[in-house]
């Protein structure tokens, strides 16, 4: 793999507790995460609600301040970037949202919304901008004449395409896709996945694909990061982890995912209970409260993310060797 385009080191994010007079417990959304995406690479981030996967995506885009750690984009430390450097960086990284209805301004024509980025960065003269919008619409599989329409005239899948066109308008190299297909019907979902993988191939996009759906990630991504309560449980090549999960959480997650072909699915490991609250995570390994393999030692220290087996994957579990 070539050098990473974007690289996060020791990323943490703590949200302060709510309330003016009483302080709620702070919520640790993301804790000590390293992540990197190379040009042309798609990295999947998988986890359930409260795992911090969406927060990770926004931190890597600099859309919210980090509590700890740093993000480097194309060699440039983002927290040290000056205002003008920031403006340059902004063009190069973009986001696609989950909700196809909330992600477009209902009051403005979609063409104007796609052109926003070019206007902000004064990229092209007005005439060429219009042409570029038409090209972008064509690229995401829509009719160029649709630029004159308003968002409510489109279906969910089409809106998602418009969102992607907007994200591509400034020539982004890095794209965070935050659950871009989970609000869509199956048949439409596949259309959007197809589009994203085509774009990635054609434009050499680096992509961080956030999803709760393991099969989608295994299908679309090169590498996958499995998160639980703000920490990485396991990471490695997507196909490899999908076929040989090591961490008890990854295995439980995989076995819980409904599959068309019951034979493909490993024997079901039923997790007990629900994930603990991110404002009050267990000590040591955050997964231990639901883990069938937990020992006293698991509560003592946060397990380090270490290479496992032949070193293709990394696992944060002290008992990985014993339980496999």
């Amino acid at each position: 793999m070539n050098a990473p385009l974007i690289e996060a080191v020791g990323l943490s994010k703590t949200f302060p507790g709510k309330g003016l007079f009483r302080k709620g417990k702070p919520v640790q959304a993301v804790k000590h995460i390293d992540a990197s995406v190379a040009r042309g690479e798609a990295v999947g981030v998988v986890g359930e609600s409260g795992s911090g996967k969406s927060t990770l995506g926004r931190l890597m885009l600099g859309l919210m301040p980090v509590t700890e750690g740093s993000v480097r984009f194309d060699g440039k430390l983002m927290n040290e970037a000056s205002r003008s450097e920031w403006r340059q960086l902004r063009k190069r990284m973009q986001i696609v949202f989950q909700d196809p209805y909330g992600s477009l301004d209902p009051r403005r024509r979609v063409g104007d919304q796609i052109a926003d980025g070019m206007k902000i960065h004064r990229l092209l003269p007005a005439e060429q901008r219009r042409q570029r919008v038409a090209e972008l619409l064509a690229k995401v599989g829509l009719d160029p004449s649709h630029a004159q329409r308003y968002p409510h005239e489109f279906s969910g899948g089409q809106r998602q395409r418009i969102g992607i066109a907007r994200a591509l308008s400034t020539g982004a190299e890095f794209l965070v896709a935050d659950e871009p297909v989970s609000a869509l019907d199956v048949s439409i979902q596949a259309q959007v996945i197809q589009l994203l993988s085509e774009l990635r191939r054609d434009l050499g996009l680096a992509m961080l694909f956030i999803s709760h759906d393991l099969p989608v990630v295994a299908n679309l991504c090169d590498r996958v990061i499995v998160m639980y309560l703000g920490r990485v449980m396991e990471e490695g090549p997507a196909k490899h982890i999908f076929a040989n999960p090591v961490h008890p959480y990854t295995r439980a997650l995989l076995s819980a995912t409904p599959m068309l072909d019951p034979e493909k699915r490993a024997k079901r490991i039923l997790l007990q209970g629900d994930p603990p609250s991110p404002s009050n995570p267990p000590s040591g390994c955050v997964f231990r409260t639901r883990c069938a393999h937990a020992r006293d030692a698991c509560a003592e220290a946060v397990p380090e993310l270490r290479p496992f087996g032949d070193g293709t994957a990394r696992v944060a579990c002290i008992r990985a060797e014993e339980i496999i």
Partner: protein
Amino acid sequence: MKKLWLPGTIVGLIILVAILAPLLGLMDPVRQDIANRLAGPMNGSPLGRDEFGRDVFSRLIWGARTSLGVAFASALIAGVIGTAFGLIGGWFRGWGEIFTVRSMDIILCFPPVLLALLVVTLMGPGAGTLILVLSVLYLPGFARVTYAEVLSARSLDYVEAVRALGAPTWRILFRTVLPNVAGPVLVQLSLAVASAVVLESGLSFLGLGVVPPSPSWGLMIRGARATMEQAPMLLLWPCAALTLTILAMNLLCDGLRDAVDPRTPATRRRIRVVDRLLPGLLPAAAPQTEAVLDVRNLTVEIATPRGAIRPVQGVSLQVFAGETLAVVGESGSGKSVTATTVMGLMPPIAQAVEGQAWLGGRDLLRLTEPELRALRGGPMAMVFQDPMSSLNPVHTVGAQVVEAIQAHQKISSSDAWKQAEQLFKRVGIADPQKRLRVYPHEMSGGMRQRVMIAMAIANRPKLLICDEPTTALDVTVQAQILDLLNALKRETGMGMIFITHSLGVVSEIADRVAVMYAGQVVEQGSVAEVFGNPLHPYTRALLEAVPEGDEPPVGIPGIVPQPHAFPVGCRFAPRCRFATPACEAAPLPLEEIRAGREVRCIRWHELTPTEAAA
């Protein structure tokens, strides 16, 4: 928009008259003429004269000028400052919020009239004092409305998208956030004007607002009170003017609010007597069937503003004891409408216009509401999609389960609570005694769904309908719930209908599956047959769209048609790669190729030769 027209015109006219008052050639509103004191209608004074002989009509019009002038001035001042405060507070949060929005809340601790009186004491009455007091009074309203809108706008994806594009703050505030806020601020503005007219007239009535002899409606009423016995009409004119103005303004506010926040009002369906009687007149004979539920040829019609639609047409389903039938389809396929209609839970605008639904020898579609009620929660029960909104937040979960038990069993409360405890244990809720006394918001999503299931199985139903019960849950919790439902079905031998959009879930839980598309069943059979050897092109395409294994998923081009525009022939034809002109010509029947295996496609013979040969 229709609601805005009349009040808008009236308010417009009043404003116009107020502005044009000096040009209307009216008598001087303050010129006294004691000789014509309390005179009736006379030449030049259509409404007569007041207690000082001043022209009532002229004073009425000039009074509008005073009232509206004060009201608009104060509303505008408050609007501009308050909106700015709200924008700053909402966007920058932190100290900005405390200084601009929270500090405003203190004004709300004073009853408005009293704050006004306090200032009047210090500054003396007069129009200037009024404008000052009223603008201060309405500041918090604007600040709060803007603040709330900005906060919600901040979290909108499209605002974040503009931020991600690198737009500077001013651009985001003015181009993206302000248009969002404009509607509610406009509504607030009209509210403030209306309310200011009331307060101004009230204070003037007390003699503490506009200083006499300036014309003001409040002052006119004050003056007329003294001469009420001799000239009651003097009292009525300003009262009427004031009331009409405020009424029109209030209606305008309501209209504006509806326009800004459009929630399409549901149209009421007028149920004609014939409609109510007709299905009952022709009761079909109860079929000889083993099925727990036998739905035959069900068609549901919904009255919408755009005309009647039929989101479910000709659907037939059977569920047998001890089996799970999955109904799978994308949004708009009519799967939930089918289930909700069977339960008799659709709103009155939806009606089953055709078909039967047999449960234990009774046709559910022809039962009266009390008869249905006896069945609901008893022999047939339902679990819904969102366990948070489906539980009442103000009652403990135990009370809600007990309510279900006592609706169908004549037992004492303490016995019912004991039963509820057993049920909780059965659905895998640890520490049931304690958990019974907990409110829904204190539970996790998975636990809430277990409560819903406990409630549904409370009276040992023969039929359990689950409408996407795991869609709102995480994968690991979904697995727990599916497991629980499977175990319950095995134990009790009830028949289960499981509605879902996920093909993976179908293969986890179901014995048989009905695939629905655009209001019709397009294929039905055992899960192994349908998934292993799909006959309908839609089923096939749906299976190919599932991202599983190494093949990239293949999407189906186009979108699911809206019920207003269902194609005449095969409803999937416009998206089908095998479609021929014959497919689109006429409605297709659901063909039963052998017992329990059905498909709605005229080309299935050609497309799946192996199955055709068999």
